[in-house]
C-alpha cells in the first residue's frame, strides 16, 4: 500500500528581548549558572510577574508577517506540571486565546508551490536548563541532574503549524522560511546551535487518498534543519515498515539521534497530559486596539517574499536564484552589498555567492556573517576577471585562498604571480608546443572529433598553469589547426 506522510511542526523561538518575559532579569546566553534569576523567575511565593511589552509586540509582528488574525483580547494561562525545569510547577503560557491565529506560509519547492497553514502563535516562558550527570548526559540513566534557571522565564514564542506538510523537504523549507521571516523581523536570532530556535515534529502516515490521520509520533532533538529532514525521513521509513508488517504505531515521543541516524522511544517521566490550564490570576488580560495593530503592520520590514520579488524585478534574477538568496537574511544582505559595490551584472554576484561561496561555507560549516570573504573581496575579484587580469579558473583558486586567509584578491594575485597571460606571442608559442606534442589529438580533431579540441585547450591551460587567457587560446588554436 502507498502511504503519505502528514507532518505538523511546533517551532519554539526565544525572543530577542533584553529582559525576561515576566521579570527584569537579563536574557543573555552563556552566563554562569543561576546568575540571572530573581524571586519572580525562581517562583518565590508572593512575587508578581509583569509581562514584557516588547515580547508581546514581537509575537504580534510575527503574526502579521505570516498573515494571522491578531486577537484583540488575549490572556495568559497556567499550565500545571511537575518537572524540575520549572520552579513554580507551572509554566505561564497561553491556552484558548493565543495572541495570533490562522496564518500561513507559502513555500516554493523545486517543482511546485504549496501553502502551509499556521494554527496559532502563542507566548509563554522558557524553562530552565537541565544538565544530566552520569548516563552519558542523557536523562535516561543519569544519576542526578543539575538545574540552571538562567533560561527560565526567557520569552518563548511557539508557532504551531497545521498538519499540512507532506514531505521532509517541505518541513525543512517551512522551518527555514519561518527562520528567514523571524530574522528579517528582528524578533529572534533563531540560532539553532544555542537553542534559540527549536523544532518538534508530529508525524503520522495514512494510506494515500484517506482523509483520517494515522497514529502520530512526536519527534524531538531536531537540532538543525538537516536533522529535521533526516529525522522525518527515518520516521517515515520506520512507520511504513511497521504498517506494512501489520504492526500498530504507538503514540509516543521519539528522540532523534544524529550520530546513530535513528529515532528511539524517549523515556520521560510519564506525563499525564492533564495540565489543568486556568487563567493566571497574577496576570490581567491584554486588550489591543486595531489602530495599534495597524501601526505595527505599517512598520513591518521587508520580508523574504517581498525581497525575492524585488530581486527578480530589479535585478532580473531567475526565481531559483532569488529563492536561495533570501533563504537567510544574511545571504540577501551579502548579495545586496556586493551588487551595490560591483555596479555590474547582479547575476554574476549571485552565481559566485550561490556557487563557490555557498560551497565553502557548507564545507567548512561557517556562517556567511563569519566568512573571511566579504562583498569587497568578491567584487574586487570579479573586477579582476572583467578586466582580463585573471581567468575564471584562476579566480576559483583565488576564491579558495580568500576564504582561508581573508586576503584581498589583488594581493593574492601579486603574491602568487597569478596574472593572466594575454600576450598573443606568448600564447602562440604555447599553442605551437601543444600542437607539436599532441599529434594524435590533432589528427582526431581533423577527423571531425570536436572533443579533441577541448583536450588541446586543456593542455594549453596546463602549460600556462591555468593562467592562459582561454579566449585567446581558443582563437589561436583554431587558427593554427
Amino acid at each position, binding site marked *: 500500500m502507498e502511504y503519505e506522510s502528514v507532518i505538523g511542526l511546533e517551532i519554539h523561538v526565544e525572543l530577542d*528581548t*533584553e*529582559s525576561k518575559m515576566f*521579570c*527584569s*532579569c*537579563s536574557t543573555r546566553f552563556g552566563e*554562569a*549558572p*543561576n*546568575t*540571572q*534569576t*530573581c*524571586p519572580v523567575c*525562581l517562583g518565590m511565593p508572593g512575587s508578581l510577574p*509583569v*509581562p*514584557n*511589552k*516588547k*515580547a*508581546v509586540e514581537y509575537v504580534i509582528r510575527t503574526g502579521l508577517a505570516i498573515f494571522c488574525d491578531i486577537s484583540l483580547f488575549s*490572556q495568559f494561562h497556567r499550565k*500545571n506540571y*511537575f*518537572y*524540575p525545569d520549572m520552579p513554580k510547577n507551572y509554566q505561564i503560557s497561553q491556552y484558548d486565546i493565543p495572541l495570533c491565529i490562522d496564518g500561513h506560509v507559502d513555500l516554493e519547492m523545486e517543482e511546485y508551490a504549496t501553502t502551509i497553514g499556521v494554527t496559532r502563535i502563542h507566548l509563554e516562558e522558557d524553562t530552565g536548563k*537541565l*544538565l*544530566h550527570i552520569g548516563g552519558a548526559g542523557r*536523562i*535516561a540513566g*543519569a*544519576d*542526578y*541532574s*543539575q*538545574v*540552571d*534557571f538562567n533560561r527560565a522565564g526567557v520569552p518563548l514564542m511557539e508557532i504551531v503549524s497545521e498538519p499540512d506538510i507532506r514531505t521532509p523537504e517541505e518541513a525543512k523549507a517551512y522551518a527555514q522560511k519561518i527562520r528567514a521571516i523571524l530574522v528579517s523581523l528582528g524578533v529572534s536570532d533563531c540560532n539553532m546551535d544555542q537553542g534559540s530556535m527549536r523544532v518538534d515534529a508530529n508525524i503520522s502516515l495514512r494510506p494515500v487518498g484517506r482523509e483520517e490521520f494515522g497514529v502520530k509520533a512526536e519527534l524531538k532533538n531536531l537540532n538543525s534543519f538537516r536533522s529535521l529532514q533526516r529525522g522525518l525521513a527515518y520516521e517515515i521509513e520506520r512507520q511504513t515498515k511497521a504498517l506494512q508488517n501489520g504492526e500498530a504505531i504507538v503514540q509516543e515521543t521519539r528522540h532523534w539521534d544524529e550520530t546513530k541516524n535513528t529515532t528511539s522511544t524517549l*523515556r*520521560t*517521566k510519564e506525563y*499525564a497530559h*492533564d495540565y*489543568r490550564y486556568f*487563567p493566571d*490570576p497574577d*496576570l*490581567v*488580560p*491584554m*486588550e489591543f486596539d486595531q489602530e495599534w495593530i495597524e501601526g505595527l503592520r505599517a512598520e513591518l520590514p521587508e520580508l523574504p517574499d517581498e525581497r525575492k520579488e524585488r530581486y527578480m524585478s530589479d535585478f532580473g534574477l531567475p526565481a531559483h536564484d532569488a529563492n536561495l538568496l533570501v533563504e537567510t537574511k544574511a545571504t540577501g544582505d551579502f548579495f545586496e552589498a556586493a551588487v551595490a559595490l560591483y555596479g555590474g551584472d547582479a547575476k554574476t554576484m549571485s552565481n559566485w555567492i550561490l556557487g563557490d561561496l555557498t560551497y565553502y561555507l557548507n564545507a567548512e560549516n561557517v556562517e556567511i556573517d563569519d566568512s573571511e570573504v566579504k562583498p569587497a573581496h568578491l567584487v574586487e575579484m570579479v573586477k579582476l576577471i572583467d578586466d582580463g587580469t585573471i581567468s575564471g579558473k584562476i579566480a576559483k583558486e583565488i576564491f579558495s585562498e580568500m576564504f582561508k586567509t581573508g586576503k584581498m584578491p589583488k594581493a593574492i594575485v601579486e603574491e602568487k604571480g597569478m596574472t593572466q597571460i594575454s600576450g598573443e606571442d606568448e600564447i602562440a608559442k604555447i599553442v605551437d608546443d601543444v600542437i607539436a606534442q599532441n599529434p594524435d589529438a590533432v589528427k582526431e580533431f581533423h577527423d571531425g572529433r570536436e572533443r579533441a579540441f577541448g583536450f588541446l585547450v586543456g593542455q594549453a591551460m596546463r602549460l600556462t598553469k591555468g593562467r592562459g587567457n582561454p579566449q585567446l587560446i581558443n582563437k589561436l588554436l583554431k587558427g593554427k589547426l
Partner: protein
Amino acid sequence: MAISEKDVKHVAWLARLALDDAEVEKFAKQLDVILEHAGKIAELDTEDVQPTAHAIPLKNVLREDKVGRCLAPEVALANAPHQEDQAFVVPRIV
C-alpha cells in the same frame, strides 16, 4: 456522588500527594460536598454573562523591556537542599 474515589486518586497523583485508602474515602466525601455547594452556581442562567477570569477591572499591565538587578547566585541557591557547580541539584528524573 459527583466525585469518585478514582478521581481523588488521580488528582492526588497530579499534586504528588500520597493518600492512603482511608484518606481517599474521606476526601472523596469532603470534595463531594464542596462540589455540590459550588454546583449551585450552575443553576443560574449565565447565557448572557461573559466568563470572568479576573474580578478587578484592570488590563494591559505591561512593563518596558529593561534589565534590572538579579539575585546573587549564592542568594538564589540559599534554600537549595542540594547544590553543585552553582546549580540546583535534583534527584534522577526518570
